[in-house]
């Protein structure tokens, strides 16, 4: 069947098997390998992307269900930063990406794209002054990380939330 999805602003159309998952479409059809697969029970969140601005686990839906919709993956968050290797690229990162960098919110990096997208959506959807540590922890319950013990991920999320003005008790 034919599926067409806008991914990071670019339209990707292909003839696919009906059973193809959105995460497979992103990785195999669009060739964007930043989005990872960490489980087969929709438990880990490594595959988290934004679908029309809302975070979803892209292994929980068929590619066909995303037909005509807008997907943003980790590669689309700060396109100007490229693959991050150019001098000065870190200055071009999205505030959430930068917070993960500054707070050592990643180690092996496998959970990172999903984690960054989840935090991005958590902050985008939060009321001003609402995100405290407990809210961040509950909000990230569906995103597993084996390396960081979550400590620095939570720090990064709270730092990014402060910058966005949605952290609890934030005065900015």
């Amino acid at each position, binding site marked *: 069947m034919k599926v067409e999805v806008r991914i990071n602003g670019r339209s990707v159309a292909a003839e696919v098997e009906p059973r193809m998952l959105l995460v497979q479409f992103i990785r195999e059809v669009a060739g964007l390998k930043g989005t990872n697969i960490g489980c087969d029970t929709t438990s880990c969140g490594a595959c988290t992307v934004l679908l029309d601005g809302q975070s979803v686990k892209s292994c929980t839906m068929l590619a066909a269900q995303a037909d005509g919709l807008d997907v943003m993956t980790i590669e689309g968050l700060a396109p100007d930063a490229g693959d*991050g290797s150019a001098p000065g690229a870190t200055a071009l990162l999205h505030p959430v990406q930068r917070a993960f960098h500054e707070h050592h919110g990643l180690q092996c990096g496998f959970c990172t794209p999903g984690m960054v997208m989840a935090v991005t959506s958590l902050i985008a959807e939060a009321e001003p002054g609402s995100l405290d540590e407990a809210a961040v922890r509950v909000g990230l319950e569906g995103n597993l990380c084996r*390396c960081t013990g979550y400590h620095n991920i939570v720090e990064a999320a709270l730092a990014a939330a402060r910058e966005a003005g949605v952290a609890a008790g934030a005065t900015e």
Partner: protein
Amino acid sequence: MSILGNRVLRREDPKFLTVGGTYVGDLELPGALHVVFVRSPLAHGVIRSIDTDEARAAPGVVGVFTNADLGAGPMTPMGMVNQSMVRPLLAEGRVRYVGEPVAAVLAETHAAGVDAAELVAVDYEPLPVVVDPVTAAETGAPILFDDVGTNIAFELNFGEDPSFFDGCDVVVRQRILNQRVAPCPLEVRSAVAEMVDGRLRFHASTQAPHDVRSTLARYLGMEESAVHVVSPDVGGGFGAKGGVYAEEVVVAALARNLNRPVRWTETRSESMLGFGHGRAQMQDVAIGATSDGKIQAYRLNVLQDCGAYPDMGAVLPFLTRLMAPGVYAIPKVECSSRSVVTNTVPVTAYRGAGRPEATAAIERAIDCLAAELRLDPAEVRRRNYIATDAFPVTTAVGTEYDTGDYAMALERALEVAGYEELRAEQARRRSAVAPDLSSEGAGGGLAPRSKQLGIGLSSYVEITAPMGGGEFGAVEVKPDGKVVVRTGTSPHGQGHATAWSMLVADAMGVSLEDIEVVHGDTDVVPRGGGTMGSRSLQLGGVAVSQAAVEVVDRGRQLAADLLEAAPDDVVLDKTMGRFHVAGTPSISRTWAELGAASLDRDGQALQAEVDFEAPGPTFPFGTHVSVVEVDLDTGQVELVRHISVDDAGRVLNPLLFGGQVHGGIAQGAAQALFEEFRYDADGNPLTANLADYSFVSAAELPSYEWTYTETPTGKNALGVKGIGEAGTIGSTPAVQNAVCDALSHLGVRHVDMPATPVRVWEAVSAASSSVPAAAAAARSEPANATNGGA
């Protein structure tokens, strides 16, 4: 000013944050065939026949293979282990655990492979199953290897001295379960194999690419030089990616045999049944002391569950034994062990590998002793630490500890925790709810209802780089002034690119941006031990650091020649990254000029290669304090605070240090409270995916209160020790002790891990049904006591 010791952000991050890492499963390999394994649904059985005809005829299928088709393997156990317990790459004649690969389907697409795998008809004859290691060790148990005739794969038997506890006023015994867990790196196993110019090129998700090279060569009957292993980004390992799995050898064998590119990525559900498990020890401890809490004798008997084939798991007790006495000066220590095979997933190394088990045993034993003597657990620890002025010290099991200051770590941790206030709060909660518990009769039979506070301590010492061995490091100056570092370590999240760059920048006066760190390619890095056992910095980092120092010496020599000066008069200006004659900084040679001059003049690169061999392992240490709230109504445990003071010698980068500790704490807390890989009596796995396995999440953990001290080692010039596993080692017993501590006033002495609501609730119920007895016992004077099992 040195960069060493500073909080330097990771150079690795930008790629992971923008386009993601390049893991094996991300590699493009046009025309690659996909491997899908047919796995045993049975824990133990005879394979009567395997019918592959229908699968072979299925669309998109290139071939279906059984063990005899491979011309590779079998896999043999490690040296110390019973050598007859060999493992065929694909099950042959018999299956020994659910998930064991029986056949391999090779197909043009993964989906076609999955469909065809369903069509492989295997006829099994079920055999009696043994899951419990205690049963497996007994005579009459179902035997996994008929020709061996026993399930015992490995034993450390030093006998038992009947007068061992003579002179002790009190002997406390406890049976402790250190349960089976699943390591669960977020990236599952994945492999890509292809023949390139007659050589096998194998991309592996591994912690040790050079070991993969030699192991594949051995099992495939190839020359090592004909095998090229590349480890790209790796999504975590935790010890369980330290060896080579049968499936990986199969992938390599198929690529070689068919001369076609082949790839394989398992699903998480497959991974839970194929990737090695961790821990899986049953421990019997007995600790004898004088009435004032001075420990006289400690006995630890370990029953290690190896799973169906003796892998690294079989020899974990060897490491457990090395660290049995922990941080304590104990005159007599006995530690024996038995490793047995069972019809379960093979056990391998998992963060700490044998050492967390040692610490868990002794730290639980100390708390049981403290409870028995009605002494504060902190005080019992103080009275028994190896004295700070005793180092280096050789323990009763013959392990030589380099440096330590255990009392300092404890006092610091207690101070950060606010220990006295915590104890006061605990007492307040206890008395507020059950003021009458201590008075006979009143309240008897009725458990108090509230959230009780538990405070758990754990003082640990760990052996890092326990297997010894050396490590390769090389530093080369390119003609454009860039510096290329090659290392035999194989990071998968630890941040070696950042850490090794710091070492080189410090020695050479070049900026971090001008340094490239290369690892994980056996054609580029000639040898390497990989990353495991907390070995990387103290071996690999030191090798790189030494190589940088040698390059500085060579650079100075070359600059002296070019400047027509004596080498002793030439100095390296590290702020500018150039050499000049002392006193005349205006005439100088930069690293770029020297890199080019070396090639021009001598025809060789300005570089140094070092194989660093340490004189011995190092022993980081620390104390963790854990605070839990236990809801007596529901059995629910909440970890509310976790304090850790860790000392791993000199600190290179506190950012990376903290990251390692944090991750370790989470894994330790997860084992203490949530995670357990479980089987039913027939060997059917009950936790075979991430929906059923209680992988710890952010919502279940607090932020950690981490701090560190620096007690350098003399085993290397940097004074550094390992830190990769310490967090897990320290945290696990601290959390478990906190749970037991929360319930101690109810007469509960021990709760096994994981302290799930059911387990806690049962322990509380069992204790409260005998509250008068418990209350009475709590008032009696210490006496010889036996708790729990044998």
